[in-house]
């Protein structure tokens, strides 16, 4: 008798599990700040829509590769930097979104609304590339991208590897140093990069590598995205951030629905959720991401280390990520020839 009651209970519990199991939303994103994102972004959404969020983490390349191999199956949403977003769209992995489900898009900066057209997802944060240098080691202030070619910086700087999010902007910067467009005159841009090589101790692939090189005293200056600065500052208090006088390249992080997602509408609601004023403010105050929602107002202290403010965002130069991707293979070969030889 006891056994039969036990089995009936077991069956009822199983049925309950099947029938009342929460809907799952699988999100592919980076592994950073997982706890803060859970607290400020995922948990409120889970509560509001009675859904369970499952995170798949990894770097851009690994996650996009996984998506390609699985032909998009098993993932609902994917966070990527621009160059990889372009790649994912070209591979046919991204679903066209229904903008009527994203009313909050009207509250975000123009440059973040539709980086790849209205069919695809918006950017939820913006970063910028700049220069970090240690004032204790370099007395002559760095103010311009051209300073990276200064002879007194030999073996003292690090730049992001071409395979990272900000890497291709180094090629564009090298072109600008000799007043040419790197897409039209790649030979001259890479010749200019070769002249900078003597100053580069090592290129880096992860932001933590850059922070380590500063901490170990290996380098005195480096090109980085703004989110890296706080880590470097913690290790080297005399480090300062410089927005070069020529202006900077913006780097946008996008969010898109994966083609074939069975939860497309819910996924779009999630995109709308992360663009909302409250979430954007919470996440900015936690120091995770810079806000793109224009209604988010931050004090100068709160905005420290973030990419914030209309004037700053208006000063950014666009990067043609389509052209970057189509030149990627040749650029990587040229880059390797210079830095690995």
């Amino acid at each position: 008798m006891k056994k039969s009651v036990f089995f009936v209970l077991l069956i009822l519990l199983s049925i309950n599990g099947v029938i009342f199991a929460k809907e799952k939303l699988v999100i592919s994103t980076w592994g950073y700040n997982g706890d803060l994102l859970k607290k400020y972004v995922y948990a409120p959404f889970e509560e509001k829509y009675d859904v369970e969020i499952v995170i798949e983490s990894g770097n851009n390349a690994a996650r996009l590769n996984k998506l390609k191999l699985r032909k998009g199956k098993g993932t609902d949403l994917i966070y990527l930097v621009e160059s990889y977003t372009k790649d994912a769209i070209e591979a046919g992995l991204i679903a066209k979104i229904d903008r009527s489900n994203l009313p909050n898009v009207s509250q975000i900066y123009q440059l973040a609304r539709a980086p790849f057209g209205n069919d695809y997802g918006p950017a939820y944060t913006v970063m910028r590339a700049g220069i970090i240098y240690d004032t204790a080691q370099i007395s002559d202030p760095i103010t311009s991208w051209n300073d990276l070619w200064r002879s007194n910086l030999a073996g003292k700087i690090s730049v992001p590897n071409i395979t990272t999010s900000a890497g291709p902007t180094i090629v564009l910067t090298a072109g600008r140093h000799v007043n040419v467009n790197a897409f039209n005159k790649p030979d001259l841009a890479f010749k200019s990069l070769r002249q900078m090589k003597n100053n580069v101790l090592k290129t880096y692939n992860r932001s933590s590598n850059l922070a380590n090189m500063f901490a170990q005293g290996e380098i005195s200056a480096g090109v980085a995205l703004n989110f890296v600065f706080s880590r470097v500052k913690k290790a080297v208090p005399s480090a300062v951030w410089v927005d070069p006088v020529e202006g900077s390249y913006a780097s946008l992080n996008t969010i898109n629905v994966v083609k074939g997602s069975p939860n497309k509408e819910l996924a779009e609601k999630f995109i709308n959720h992360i663009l909302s004023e409250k979430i954007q403010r919470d996440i900015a105050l936690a120091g995770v991401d810079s806000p793109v929602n224009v209604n988010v107002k931050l004090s100068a202290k709160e905005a420290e280390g973030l990419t914030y403010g209309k004037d700053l965002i208006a000063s950014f130069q666009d990067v043609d990520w389509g052209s970057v991707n189509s030149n990627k293979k040749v650029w990587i070969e040229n880059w390797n020839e210079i830095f690995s030889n």
Partner: protein
Amino acid sequence: MNNRLHILLVLPGVLLVVALLVAPLYFVFLDTIPDLEHPFSLYEAFLEKGFHQKIIIRTIRVALITTMICVILAYPCAFFIARYARRFKAVLIVIAVFPLLLSPVVRSFAWMAILGKNGFVNDLLLFFRIIQEPVQMLYTEGAVIVGLTYLFLPLMILPLVGVIENIEEDLLDSAKSLGAKDIIVFFQIILPLSASGLLVGCILVFTGSLTAYTTPRLLGGDQAMTLSTLIYQNAMTLFEWDAASVIAIIMITLTILVMKIIGSLATRMNPDV
């Protein structure tokens, strides 16, 4: 009947190896053959680039230097553990194996702290006024060799301990009593008799160094790019799986070639190997 039983017992293992090792390698190889008219065109395209040739030579050079340093360091350690350690033998073997118990990332970061400009070695050299300003040691080929030697030394020590233990003490005593100097005893008795352990150690260290990824990535500079880092770049950044497969097959071929060379050298030292 007995033979059938043997075959049946071996069959599951063989099938597993075929399914999980031989078949994937076969498919990787197939990816590198675009068409039968020009079956090796991808290899030709890869090998004709001077930059790729340099990476191949650098990878082999790093693996060979690491293997040689491991041989030089492992013999005295193995000899001491096998002959004189007695009741401390187990403890010494655990100490020798210790680098293998650490994560490659932790190990590499430890070397960063030692070899860095603010690191222990530079501090020591500055303290004794051997140098006037910190020397660049990190992010060089030398740093990669140091990191790989630390990692793979146990793989050389362990097989050598096994074979040196089996060399008869009387044999060494006889040689010495007949007037052979220590160096003669080493080269004419110990080295040939430990050739089998040396062969195993060399293959493990060389293969490990040739295919290492984390250590060259963290301790090496841009000029220390190796075949394994190039595979990662092709597969994970460019999504060029064919090119990554070509490099993988080249690495396998190199490993087999060097194993054959080391094997024939060991046979020349001791024909019984």
